[in-house]
Each structure stands twice: as structure tokens, then as C-alpha cells.
């Protein structure tokens, strides 16, 4: 029996095991939504903005490892997901976005709500396809999921014209998929891996540097094994957090621009770098010419373009991180009982790192009057035993969350890394919550980021997604303000956000519990009450607007040249006076 394109769409999604679709209907996808409306196998989450749908699908994908699915209409529906696509492309998130398109006979005519979906999304997708014939639909969907979830994962866009969704064809879902020009390499080159094992054994000051690739590849267990077998300390990028237990004695936490002093110093002094699914982003390397000057580099990545892009790799290994590390561990295990020797041999290196850690640990001073943002974040993590799924937005709060996160499981720290998309956190948290309705999902955000997608409070309320929003309210675009303090003589150009809105009332307007803490003593009771509440909660923490995030490698600086606290000249400035003046000038103040 022949099926319509819309029915083929539904059946294909079922075959792919899709459980939920995030999206908003519109003219050219009505047929598809109509079919989705008449079945119960797939949930449709109606978001309040297409960008929200894209980030929810990302959150879902990052939490589960499965492809997130977005369904939106043509024109503005599609252009509104571009940020989500670009974000997913940068962070290698498996996403399949279905966009409606005007009927094939209208394409190119500037029809109502027409946009060149393929042209617009080309630079921010792993692959995209316009389906011109309903007979190609099932195969195209199969290929889209295959490409999105294999190799280095990424977003794939499938553009479906209206007539393709209404035309009929025989439905047979292809069992196998073969894409001519797409053949990811999974196994590493044996010779290279053997070389790598030799270097790991003889290195004096090795460091394992873990990126997001380790999370996608589910390689946490293998990384722990390498680290323990060869006694190598591990540092993680923002995207890699969770792939090595935060409390492990070999764990150094995050590195990079706001990473630990000790982990950056360890990188700088290392003689061997084992890069695992990481891409030497500029936020990690700092000044390239001074990056790890003494280190030989072993670089394991499934994407050949990541290797030797920014940093020369002495031993490049193209392959899936998990597979390659398993191969590597075979060699490391065969070190004929020399582990204890190795432990002894590496002792000075580990002691050196401990010394750096003791010299400059993460620190803040929580007084009696003003709430420190780090205090809120640290308390939230402690009170939840580092066990929830943490989803952050972008900015200072994100860096503090990363610094204080000690979680031990991959896929429990979800954030927008590469693109740095403010507004990602809250919808992504909803997506993660949809995937795991019974798990605790914390959304660590700020007043700046949250206001880029607050409309999804409606989605949280309607679908009863009990996300706990921890809103670090410092009345500023905090990271921008920090840079203005450090590099622009504290001129707060367009960074002051003020007291608007009243977040508690905003939450209440959506039927969501809103709580507020203004003083240090109120922080814990608010967290306790928020966590106890069964539904979604917005906790508004008013914190010190002038707290800066340290350590910090200034942009263009080398990784060992970290700033550890506010420079003396900044401490002299009456910054609250400046903010007060801003307020008096009428910026960001509640109307009387």
C-alpha cells in the first residue's frame, strides 16, 4: 500500500527508534504534524520558539548520545534553528533537523515563507539534503540518521517540500545504508598506536588531555584504564568534563582559559601530551607559539581535519577514541608488571602538580553580606552530591560551574562550548529532562543567558519538565563586564542589565515556582526548597555583580601566564559607583 510522504516520515522515525520530536508547525509541514497528531509512539514537544526546539534536541542528544530530532516549518521556522545547527556543528552533536520547504514547483520563486534552507544551512551542518521526490524520502532519512550519529557526529538537515509530504510512494525502509563518499575510520593504525604506547611508557611528565570526543565515544572506562595503567594525570576540556571522575587522584579538572592553575601549568611543562578527542581550541591553547613548548603530541581523533590543524601532532592517530584506547591499553597492559615502577617514576611529576594546586587552588571569599556566585554553584553541587545532569548557559556562571563540577559520569555536564551560545542552557536542560524524566536536571544559567530563551518556561510548565533553574543574577553580562574591567578601563558599554525583570514573578506568570535569595544565609534554604519541589523551579540568586572568574589566561596570552585575581589597579576602582551611575542614567531599571 502506498503511503504519503508524511506517513513515510513517521514510519521512518519509528524505525530509527525516535521517541520525541521538538518543533513548531507551520504552513508547509501541517501534513506531517497532522500525521504525528494521530499516533502515540512519538511525543511531539511544541516549543515556543524554533531556537528552543533546536537546543532542546541538542540537550536530548547530549544527554542520551542518540540523535535529537527537530521539525520546523520553512522560511522563518528554518532560519530560527540556524543557531542551534551551528552550535551542534561546533560541538559535534548528533541532530537531525527536518525543515519544511515550499512545494517543488514554487522553489526559487520567492514564495511565501520560502528560504534557501540548503544554502543557509550548508556551512553549519555536517550534511544537508533537499528531498525532491517522495520515493527518495525513506532512504534520505536513513542516511541522515546514519551520517548524524556516526564518525564525528553532527547536525544533518533534511528539507522536505510540501508536495513531498503529501505525495504517495511505496514504503520500504532500507535495512542497510551506504553513502559512497562517507567512510569514517574507527580502528587506529596499529603501528602508530604501538609508537604511542612506547612514548607513554618513557615519558617523564605526561598529561592526558580529554575533549568532547571522549564523551561521544563513551570512552570514560578506557580513559580511566590508560590513566591508571600508565599513571598519567588527566585534564579535561569544557566539553570533556564528566569523562574522568572529578574525585579521582589523577584528575586535574578543566584546563584552558578558566581552567585550574595546576592543570594549565602541567600542560605547559608536560613532555608528552595525549590528546583524546580534543581539537586544540584557542580557549584551551592560549598563545599557540608558547603552547606546551616541550611536549611531544599524540593526537587521537576520529576527524582527520582536527589533527595538525592548530598544533603539530608527532603521532597522529585517526580513529574512534574508544576503539583506539582499547588497542592502546593492550600494549600498556603488556608492560610486564612495571606499573609500580611507573608509579614511582612519575611521583615527582605528580608531586609537582600537587604543589601547583596547593599554591593556587580555586578560591573565593564568602562574607556575610553579599552572595558570591561560586558559593551558590558549589553549594548546589554539594547538596546534590554532584549527581544530577548539569546543563549550563554561557558566561561566567558556565566557567564557575565547570570549575566546581566533580561529576563522575559522562553526559552529565552539558554546555555550549564551541559556539558559546547564550540561551542554550534552559532549552537544552528541558531536552535532557525529557530524555530522563526521573533524573535531577540542573540548569545553571544567568540573567543574561536566560533572557535569550525565557519563553520556554511555557514548555517546562506544560510538559511538566521539572528542571531546577539556578539563575546566577549579577545584573550584568558578567563575562563581558569582566573583560571591560580588565581591558577597557571598566567602561561598561552595553553590559549592564539591571534589575529587570523580576524573575520570581516571571516564573509565576508561567505557573512555575519562583524563589529568590538575596543574602548568603538565604542561599541554602532556597536550594533546599527548590530541590524538594516536584515541578520546575526558578531560583533567582542575587550575587556580587563584580566577582570575576579566575584563573584566567587573557586572550592571546600563554597558558602559564594566568591571572589569578583582580589586578591591583582594578581593585582601586569604585565599580559599584559606576554601576550605580548607570542605573541613575536609567539603564536597566524597573519603571516606577
Amino acid at each position, binding site marked *: 500500500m502506498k503511503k504519503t510522504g508524511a506517513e513515510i516520515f513517521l514510519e521512518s522515525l519509528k524505525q530509527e527508534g525516535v521517541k520525541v520530536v521538538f518543533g513548531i508547525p507551520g504552513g508547509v509541514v501541517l501534513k506531517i504534524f497532522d500525521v504525528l497528531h494521530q499516533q502515540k509512539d512519538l511525543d511531539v514537544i511544541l516549543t515556543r520558539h524554533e531556537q528552543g526546539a533546536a537546543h532542546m534536541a541538542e540537550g536530548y542528544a547530549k544527554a542520551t548520545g542518540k540523535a535529537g530530532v527537530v521539525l520546523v516549518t520553512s522560511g522563518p521556522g528554518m532560519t530560527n534553528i540556524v543557531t542551534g545547527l551551528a552550535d551542534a556543528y561546533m560541538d559535534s552533536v548528533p541532530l537531525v533537523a527536518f525543515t519544511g520547504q515550499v512545494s517543488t514547483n514554487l522553489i526559487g520563486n520567492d514564495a511565501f515563507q520560502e528560504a534557501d534552507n540548503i*544554502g543557509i544551512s550548508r556551512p553549519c551542518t*555536517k*550534511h544537508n539534503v533537499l528531498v525532491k521526490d517522495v520515493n527518495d524520502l525513506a532512504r534520505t532519512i536513513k542516511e541522515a540518521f546514519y*551520517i548524524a550519529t556516526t564518525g564525528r557526529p553532527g547536525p544533518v538537515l533534511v528539507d522536505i517540500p510540501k508536495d513531498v509530504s503529501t505525495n504517495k510512494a511505496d514504503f520500504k525502509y532500507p535495512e542497510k545504508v551506504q553513502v559512497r*563518499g562517507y567512510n569514517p575510520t574507527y580502528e587506529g593504525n596499529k603501528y602508530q598506536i604501538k609508537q604511542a604506547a612506547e612514548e607513554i611508557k618513557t615519558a617523564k611528565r605526561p598529561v592526558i588531555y580529554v575533549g568532547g570526543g571522549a564523551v561521544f565515544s563513551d570512552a570514560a572506562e578506557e580513559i580511566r584504564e590508560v590513566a591508571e595503567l600508565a599513571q598519567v594525570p588527566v585534564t579535561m576540556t569544557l566539553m570533556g568534563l564528566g569523562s574522568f571522575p572529578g574525585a579521582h587522584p589523577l584528575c586535574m579538572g578543566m584546563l584552558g582559559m578558566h581552567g585550574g592553575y595546576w592543570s594549565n601549568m602541567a600542560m605547559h611543562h608536560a613532555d608528552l601530551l595525549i590528546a583524546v578527542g580534543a581539537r586544540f581550541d584557542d580557549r584551551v591553547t592560549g598563545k599557540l607559539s608558547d603552547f606546551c613548548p616541550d611536549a611531544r603530541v599524540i593526537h587521537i581523533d576520529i576527524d*582527520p581535519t582536527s589533527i595538525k590543524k592548530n598544533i603539530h601532532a608527532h603521532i597522529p592517530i585517526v580513529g574512534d577514541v574508544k576503539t583506539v584506547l582499547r588497542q592502546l591499553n593492550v600494549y600498556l597492559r603488556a608492560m610486564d608488571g612495571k606499573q609500580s615502577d611507573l608509579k614511582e617514576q612519575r611521583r615527582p611529576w605528580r608531586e609537582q602538580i600537587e604543589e601547583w594546586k596547593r599554591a593556587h587552588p580555586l578560591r573565593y571569599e564568602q562574607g556575610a553580606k553579599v552572595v558570591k556566585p561560586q558559593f551558590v554553584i558549589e553549594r548546589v553541587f554539594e547538596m546534590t552530591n554532584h549527581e544530577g545532569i548539569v546543563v549550563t548557559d554561557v558566561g561566567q556562571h558556565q566557567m564557575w560551574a565547570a570549575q566546581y563540577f566533580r561529576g563522575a559520569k559522562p553526559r552529565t555536564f552539558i554546555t555550549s562550548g564551541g559556539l558559546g551560545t547564550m540561551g542554550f542552557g534552559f532549552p537544552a536542560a528541558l531536552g535532557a529532562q525529557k530524555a530522563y524524566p526521573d533524573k535531577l536536571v540542573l540548569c545553571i544559567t544567568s540573567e543574561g543567558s536566560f533572557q535569550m530563551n525565557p519563553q520556554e518556561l511555557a514548555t517546562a510548565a506544560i510538559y511538566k519538565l521539572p528542571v531546577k533553574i539556578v539563575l546566577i543574577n549579577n545584573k550584568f553580562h558578567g563575562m563581558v563586564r569582566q573583560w571591560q574591567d580588565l581591558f577597557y578601563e571598566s567602561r561598561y558599554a552595553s553590559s549592564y542589565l539591571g534589575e529587570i525583570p523580576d524573575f520570581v514573578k516571571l516564573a509565576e506568570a508561567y505557573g512555575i515556582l519562583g524563589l529568590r535569595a538575596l543574602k548568603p544565609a538565604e542561599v541554602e534554604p532556597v536550594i533546599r526548597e527548590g530541590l524538594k519541589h516536584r515541578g520546575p523551579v526558578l531560583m533567582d540568586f542575587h550575587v556580587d555583580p563584580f566577582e570575576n572568574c579566575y584563573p584566567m589566561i587573557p586572550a592571546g596570552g600563554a597558558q602559564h601566564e594566568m591571572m589569578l585575581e583582580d589586578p591591583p589597579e582594578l581593585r582601586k576602582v569604585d565599580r559599584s559607583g559606576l554601576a550605580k551611575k548607570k542605573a541613575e542614567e536609567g539603564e536597566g531599571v524597573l519603571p516606577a
Partner: protein
Amino acid sequence: MEHIISVQVENKAGVLARVAGLFSARGYNIESLSVAPTLDPTTSMITIVTQGDDPVVEQIIKQLNKVIEVLKVVDLTETNFLDRETALIKIHTRPEHRDEAIRIADIFRAKIVDSSPTTYTVEVTGDVDKVEALINLLKPLGIKEIVRTGRVAIAREAAKVQTRREIQAAKA
């Protein structure tokens, strides 16, 4: 250094845009580019002439390989290769110059493929040096218009060109 890269792609809409977009987005430069179907009508061959030091060209090749519709990428500059370009050159010909124009064309084994009372159109095929040399000689006569195909190239050996990976595999 100049590199000539052969890119075999699926013959589908948008593939050229993807390849060209990759070059512009990453700041690589394209000196010339030509595309035409191969013997297999489902694939096309793109020949790109680009400039870059070794790490840049290595990235270009990797990035091209990453495009889903790209089937094979070969840096011909690493092999012994043959390259050709065709140019059509329309020149002004005053009566006293018409013989001279034919003589120059003859020297380069170029053909006069169209003629009007005041113009000749010369067709020339050859490597870049030959085409440039002819253009230089015709300049004094007055060039009215010129179109060039950009270069196409092929490996000289009897066997088909190998990819970098195939070469490495053969060595190992």
C-alpha cells in the same frame, strides 16, 4: 606553493557550492576551478588550483575529504602530472596586422576559429606558460576579449592517480 587538486565528487546539485563554500569559509584561495562530468555520469571531476604552504594544503585536502559528496581527493602536485588550459582570445586586426596574427598563432599551434573584418578569435590549448606567452605576443595587436577555462590536470603514469592514503599504504 601552487597545488593542483583533483576532486572527484558525486554529480549532485549543490556539491560545487559546498566545495567553493569550504574554500571561502576557511580563507583558502582558489586560483582556478573547473568542473565537468567524468566517464561515470554520476560523478564529476573538479580541478582546483590553489596556493598554500604544506600544512594549509594538508588541511584543504582533509577538509575536502570530509565533505560527504566528495569521493576522492588527489594532490596532483605530489605526482608527475600533465596540465592544460584552453583560452579563446579575440583580437583587433587592422588589415596590416592580419598576417602577423596568423603567424603568431601558427608558432603556438593555435587556431583561428572565427574571423570578422576587424577581428580574429584565436583558440589555444597548452600549459599555462604557453597560453601566457601567446597572450603576451598578441597584446600589441590589441586584445578585445579573452576567456580561459582554468586548468585541468591528469597524472602522467599509466595507472590511475593515487590518493595520499594509497601512496602511504603502498610505502608501508
